[in-house]
């Protein structure tokens, strides 16, 4: 449906997007994930037609949108601060897009009511938008974007302005609404939790380039590089060098590791790599492989597991374990060779 092809964009003479390409399929929700300043909002604005790229094109069903002005693209856009029209009430805000299509009033009213029901804002229809709370504004903004039944919905950090509790609650509602509506959507966020909840697919953007474009499961199980791993909260990373391929062994400052997972492409003997010790890699049983001395620094009860922080060699790691460990003790641990990812070292 939507296809973005090698977009370049500069901002104040600095490259912001450096050749970004991706596609969206019917009914799919993709999450554009990246730090602030990574160019993800700009990318959305280029797709919407609000900004023009230096080069590259946006296609909708193979039609180049270059000469289609914003108001003729039939895309929906939800801004971070909602951008509700302050001089119109809830109903008028939601009806705006339908009015622009010059629909008869009965039909507009019918459609507005339908979408207001969907976001549970029916009883607020005559309120002024200034009188709404943050969460209510968010619902109205979503309703406004959905009402004209756009071909594509774009959401720019739609939950960014809300507090944590409300965000978690609305996140689930939003996910259901997006899947129900079957409208393809691009959801921009810097929050990995949101991205995992909402997205059918994640597109990770860093310094103007797409680093990884995959399903949430895939990203989590096989992060492309250390940046992705760190960004999605996997922080047990350490540098090493391939010592042998069969069996796979890696030397690191914290000791030597045996690994029973795949080797990244184009990595040879003697190459530098990065090890990702997955959070569940720690076992306290006496295993033969990957045994280390660990100094327990901290142990936090999380509900059904404990998060243990420990030092191996001169590096700190944290793992999830099923039983408490006393803080300050020095114990023997082993790292499951099947729970280590080998990542390409950065240049």
């Amino acid at each position, binding site marked *: 449906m939507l296809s973005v092809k090698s977009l370049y964009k500069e901002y104040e003479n600095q490259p912001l997007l450096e050749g970004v390409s991706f596609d969206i399929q019917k009914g799919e929700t993709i999450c554009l994930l990246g730090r602030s300043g990574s160019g993800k909002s700009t990318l959305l*604005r280029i797709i*919407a*037609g*609000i900004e*023009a790229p*230096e*080069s590259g094109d946006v296609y909708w069903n193979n039609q180049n949108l270059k000469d289609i*002005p*914003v*108001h*003729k*693209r*039939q*895309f*929906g*856009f939800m*801004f*971070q*601060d909602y*951008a509700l*029209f*302050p*001089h*119109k009430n809830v109903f008028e805000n939601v009806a*705006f*897009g339908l009015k*622009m*299509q010059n629909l008869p009033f009965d039909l507009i009213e019918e459609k507005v009511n339908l979408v207001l029901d969907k976001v549970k804002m029916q009883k607020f229809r005559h309120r002024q938008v200034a009188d709404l709370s943050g969460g209510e504004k968010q619902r109205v903004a979503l309703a*406004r*974007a959905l009402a*004209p039944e756009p071909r594509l919905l774009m959401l720019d950090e739609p939950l960014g302005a809300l507090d944590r509790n409300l965000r978690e609650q609305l996140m689930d509602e939003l996910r259901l609404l997006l899947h129900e509506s079957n409208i393809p959507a691009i959801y921009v966020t810097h929050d990995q939790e949101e991205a995992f909840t909402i997205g059918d697919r994640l597109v990770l953007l860093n310094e103007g380039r797409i680093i990884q474009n995959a399903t949430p499961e895939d990203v989590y199980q096989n992060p492309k590089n250390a940046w992705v791993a760190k960004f999605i909260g996997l922080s047990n990373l350490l540098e090493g060098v391939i010592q042998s391929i069969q069996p796979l062994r890696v030397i690191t400052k914290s000791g030597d590791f045996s690994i029973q997972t795949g080797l990244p492409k184009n990595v040879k003997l003697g190459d530098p790599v990065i090890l990702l010790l997955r959070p569940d890699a720690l076992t306290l049983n006496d295993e033969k492989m990957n045994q280390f001395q660990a100094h327990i620094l901290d142990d936090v009860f999380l509900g059904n597991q404990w998060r243990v922080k420990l030092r191996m060699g001169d590096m700190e790691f944290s793992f999830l374990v099923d039983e408490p460990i006393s803080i300050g003790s020095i114990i023997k641990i082993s790292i499951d060779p099947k729970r280590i990812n080998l990542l390409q070292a950065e240049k």
Partner: protein
Amino acid sequence: MKQALKYIRTIPAILLWSLPFAFMLIFYFQPLLANFRVAWQATTSEVLASIPYKVITQPLFFTIWQASLSTLLTIIVGISPAYLMAKYRFFGKSFIRLLTTIPFIMPTVVVAAGFNALLGPKGWFNLLLQTIFSLDNPPIQILNSLGAILFAHVFYNSTVFIRVVGGAWSQLDPKIGFAARTLGASPVRVWQKITFPLLKPALLSAILLIFLFNFTSFAVILLLGGPKFSTMEVEIYIQALHMLNLPVAGLLSGIQLLFTLVLTILYSRIIKTKSVALTPRDPEEVAKSITGWKQRSFLIGTMSYLVVLFAAPLFSLVLRSFLLTDTNRNVEGLAGNRFSLVYYQELFLNRRESLFYVPPIDAILNSLYFGLITVGIALFLGFLAASVISSRSSWGKLLDPILILPLGTSAVTLGLGFILVFNSPPLDVRSIPLLVPIAHSLVAMPFVVRILQPIIASIPRELKYSAMVLGASPWRTFWQVEFPILFRAIISAALFSFTISLGEFGATTFLARSEQPTIPIAIYRYLSQPGGLNYGQAMAMSTILMIICALSIFLIERLKLPNIKEF
């Protein structure tokens, strides 16, 4: 190629944006340059040798003298009300605030007529004194003296002082002063070290602005000063329109322009530095209530002279417009006079059937007509200019300081410049009917921009984008989103331009055709002719103008827009 395409797309915007520039270029800079050119030619030709230096130096020195004196008096009159308005809560404060807005856009002719009605030979004071003491001649001869000029200038400008300085004062956090006191500073030291330095930018900008207004004051001097006093403005007017000596007029206006440009640039500089001030406080949070007899009598004293200063001239103007003095019976004083609507009825009649005298009511129609055109021009160009400035492009940075210039440029110099540019063959001022509203628009545009610009800048771009994404074309986006949000500001700007146009006197004296006078021109004509009927009609006409202006001030205040208090 890509760059070229990008520029082609922005052509409509550039065309629109260049309109205010073009307008300023043709109708502001061109007349200005013409003034300078004539001034330059005058200095190099024999014309200068043939005229005594006094023609130049005398009005210049008098202008500086009266402007300084008026400014000083204004500060003295304005300082205690500014302090009271800033620091205290009291009964009638909002009434006083409303009162101080009145002279703000009250036309100079109305104020001059008001002072005439209060203190002039046919004014209330003299009528009363003549009645009480059975005098044949009016005892108070303040009219045509320096005193009258100073009085009117103080009336005019003390409100500027109260608003600018009082506004800044009310936003000073009193806690800063308390902190200084706890650190061992005496109240005097707090004033020296804290309050005064913080207030200094506001004080300076108020003083400069007031000096500038006094420096370029025209109608007040002409109508209240009489033939004895001639400021630069009046001298330019006399030389150009009465003596028909354009080189001298040009030379005078060149000097005048230099002074005003320097003052205006200084003023805009100070305004800029002022904006790095403190976090503003809610004035109501700072205000204390009045306690004790000392404070109470200070308040009552200050407020009563304010009420007398602001209300008395306008009040006596209205009353005088209904008082029919019967000069035929040769009775002096109030005896034999009665209240009537005769002066108003006379406005509809054409007494002298000559070419130059049209029924006075026509002047009102002319003024309304010019006013409406001015609103159109000033709003359209002002909106464009405000959008350019809000865009923060390099165009906007260029336009912002340019737009403030007409504020400080005297209307008389502008009028003269128009004559110099547009009255040379084949053009004739009379052949361009729009020149009067164009001149008015030049004066009004800075105000329009200053009202619209902050509101335009405050509209988040996302609102426009939202509308566009939802399918609104740029045209519909403007009418559906920007226009409704700007609506109150636009109304306020329209009222402002309308009142400015109605009251404009300086430029209009140069540009209005004699058979097409505006209200202020008609008032001036009446006042400069003898006879009770003329005087009464001047009063009636001034009252009408005053009521229209008061109504629009009232409406502007009701619209409650921020930032009108600053120019």
